[in-house]
């Protein structure tokens, strides 16, 4: 896979980057806030990554476009919020979630996104998890977990590497641990219910509402909650729609099967022998409307669509849960008196209660399925292969690390670090460098190496040279970004790499203002090439 072109913007301002080469690229500037991170994150966001944008940048208002070449096929992706339009040759595809985009990449055999077992389901790894194999962003770095930790975590990352390695791991922790979690969850639910009862039974609440309704703090919290609540509502609606569609498709299958029975009455029967094998002499004797091949194909495709819908529904359920967790968190910070009033005024609590129950049921279901799968797996072989792979990668990481920092005292003993281990800035940098290269060398994957801020934490020039030379030696596309100190910049630091490296200087960009009016026509052309109206 090669990144060919990146564009970001809206009707008022835009930026288009088409200077990227197939080899090693350094995007640098003499100062921060020149748009390097925006372009890196924008590029990945278009491809379905989670939004991790610099503060003050409202990604929801913008279009994101990335053109890639993958297996010699040019693919262009245009994203706005959760809508994707993908162009391949002259075909246009529409997707409404990253899950659908993911399925497209996988079904069309463009990306080898491995399957993992997640919550008892065999699922294709999420794109943001997958991208961490070859992309390191600047923010939220944490060597003891994945960068986009949340729904996915480092365990999933390891599971994904195992699948990529050909030996899928099913579960790395004891099931006891899970059962414990379920117990806790159940306890939580019953506690919430009790609380609800208490509040509803309290007749003084309306008095509180009057008392607090003009309070500034009250209105702030209230609008906060309202916005989270509307997101939850949105996902609920979407989930409902998908559920409806799924049911529609299920009943379509039944209907199709019944339609295909030819009406028996009125069949011509030969009067002399009773046979219904009468040969028509009528010229208009027509072909059947479809044949068995077509019918089987239609049915298979519908079933496949149903499966996809099921996964999308699970994704929305997760998003719902996220929103509800957020809501809970907000409520935690609210003073107790306000708390009750807030809850009363928005009648939110009953919703939480209801959904918690649902989630609980889901969790139980997942648990059962997990057990089912565990019966059939051959865990020990997978584990053996896992430790072999881990060892290979960790050894490679240590070699790469020692080459950069021969005096450094760090010894990696796992792909991720332990939670309590803290790294200095340069050590952290060296860790990501070693990991991304070790994984690249182990899997020899087709993806470029993308590192935003590749020399953060005061990496010395000597170390940086070693790193850059190693990137060059991989003979694949690499895009890294760097902020130079003034003296480095005026010394034209990267000029001596010009032979091997494509140098892109962002210094002339206005601070904190990558997007410019002048790029809008170019972005407009791009967006309209997708048959998308460029107005919002």
């Amino acid at each position: 896979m090669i990144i060919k072109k990146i564009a970001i913007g809206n009707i008022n301002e835009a930026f288009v980057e088409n200077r990227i080469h197939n080899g090693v690229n350094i995007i640098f500037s003499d100062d921060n806030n020149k748009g390097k991170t925006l372009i890196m994150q924008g590029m990945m966001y278009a491809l379905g990554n989670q939004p991790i944008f610099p503060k003050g940048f409202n990604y929801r208002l913008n279009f994101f476009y990335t053109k890639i070449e993958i297996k010699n096929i040019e693919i262009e992706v245009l994203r706005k919020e959760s809508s994707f339009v993908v162009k391949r040759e002259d075909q246009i595809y529409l997707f409404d979630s990253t899950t659908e985009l993911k399925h497209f990449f996988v079904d069309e055999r463009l990306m080898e996104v491995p399957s993992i077992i997640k919550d008892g389901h065999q699922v294709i790894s999420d794109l943001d998890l997958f991208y961490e194999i070859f992309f390191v962003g600047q923010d939220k770095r944490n060597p003891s977990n994945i960068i986009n930790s949340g729904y996915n975590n480092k365990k999933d990352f390891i599971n994904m590497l195992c699948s990529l390695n050909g030996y899928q791991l099913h579960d790395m922790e004891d099931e006891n641990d899970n059962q414990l979690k379920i117990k806790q969850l159940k306890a939580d639910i019953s506690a919430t219910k009790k609380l609800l009862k208490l509040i509803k039974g309290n007749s003084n609440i309306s008095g509180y509402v009057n008392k607090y309704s003009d309070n500034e703090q009250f209105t702030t919290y209230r609008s906060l909650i309202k916005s989270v609540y509307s997101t939850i509502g949105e996902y609920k609606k979407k989930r409902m729609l998908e559920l409806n569609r799924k049911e529609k498709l299920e009943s379509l299958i039944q209907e199709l099967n019944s339609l295909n029975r030819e009406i028996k009455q009125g069949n011509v029967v030969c009067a002399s022998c009773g046979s219904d094998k009468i040969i028509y002499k009528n010229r208009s004797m027509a072909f059947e409307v479809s044949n068995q091949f077509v019918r089987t194909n239609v049915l298979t495709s519908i079933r496949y669509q149903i499966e996809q819908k099921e996964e999308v529904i699970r994704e929305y359920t997760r998003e719902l849960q996220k929103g509800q967790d957020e809501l809970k968190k907000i409520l935690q910070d609210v003073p107790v008196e306000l708390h009750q009033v807030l809850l009363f005024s928005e009648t939110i609590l009953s919703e939480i209660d209801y959904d918690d129950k649902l989630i609980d049921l889901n969790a139980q279901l997942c648990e059962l399925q997990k057990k089912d799968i565990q019966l059939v797996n051959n865990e020990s072989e997978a584990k053996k292969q896992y430790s072999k792979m881990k060892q290979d990668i960790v050894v490679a990481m240590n070699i790469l690390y020692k080459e950069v920092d021969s005096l450094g005292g760090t010894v990696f003993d796992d792909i991720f670090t332990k939670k309590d281990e803290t790294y200095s800035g340069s050590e952290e940098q060296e860790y990501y460098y070693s990991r991304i290269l070790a994984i690249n060398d182990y899997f020899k994957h087709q993806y470029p190496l993308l590192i935003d801020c590749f020399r953060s934490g005061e990496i010395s020039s000597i170390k940086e040279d070693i790193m850059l030379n190693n990137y060059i030696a991989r003979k694949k596309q690499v895009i890294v970004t760097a902020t130079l100190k003034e003296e480095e910049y005026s010394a034209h630091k990267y000029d001596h790499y010009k032979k091997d490296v494509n140098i892109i200087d962002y210094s002339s960009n206005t601070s904190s203002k990558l997007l410019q009016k002048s790029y809008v026509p170019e972005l407009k052309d791009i967006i309209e090439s997708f048959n998308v109206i460029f107005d919002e």
Partner: protein
Amino acid sequence: MYEFTTTERNNNKANEYETKAMLYLFGCRKDSINIDVFIIDCFNDVTGSTVSVDQLWDVQSKGVQSLNPQKIGTALITLYQNYISDIDFEYYILLMPKLKEMYLQDEELSAYGITNFIAKYVDKIREGLSKEYLRRNKISPDAKDIEDFLNKIEFIIANGNKAEYVKKITTFTSKNSLEDEFYNIIFDEIRDKQTILKSTNIDGYTIMKPAEVLQFGKSIWKKDIDSLVINRMLGVDIFNQRAVPIAFIDEIVTLESEERKDMLVDCQSEIAKMLFDKNGRMIFWKFFEKLLSHKKDIIRKTPREILQQIKSEKILIPRILSDMSVIYMISLLKEGLKYDN
């Protein structure tokens, strides 16, 4: 006057060859475009014709392995009888498997005239034909007629399996890569239709003008087969494709994303139901045929314009299809139809 004789019954292998003969006429010749209809088992195994029956391509198929020149001569009898009949045929074609080596000057050719046979084998062919003529008519054939006739024969090698023949006549590009089995089934459907037509016996009937042959209904129209193939491909494409047909995007661009999804599923469902409805076939084919008669317009105009057009022509649309579904179907057709047809 032309009197119909010998309509033959034969086995599956021979039937397969006759279907290949028809598909050969359909899509493998430079002048294929001029053929509109195939007359089955009247003058010969298959006879291609223009719509006005003023130009005829007469084909004898011989699906027999191990053909030798003598047998080839025998196999030419119907073509020859047609040659000397009152009806003018434009082309005389023998479709046969590749011959064993040694009979030909150039073994590589897949279409050739009598001159490609080595001289002594031409004699054998002539001998075989004359003997068979004598056997049937109790008199010897005219030597000059035989010579002229032999010079007009096109020997065509049937190469390729069933699927390849169907692929050659396909005027629609599917979004999916279809396995051979898909084409084999279409081939068999066409073959079965041909077999049914063969079972109508017209032995002893006579006609005065070629055009009268169509009255027997023993003919398959090219556009019927074309519709069949397009319909089968469309059927596979409907649910199998994620790409929204570009022409359809204009129809749904103003809708909310959720409404778009519903719209697509509804259209796909309706078309699927239509394809599964065995009882609606008459109406369906009439509708589909009319729709495809606008092929050129489909490529040029918007699907909605086409819908207006067929509505103004009072073409009966299968009840199961809403306007949107018809537009969706036209959009799919628009994407798949090849320009060079």
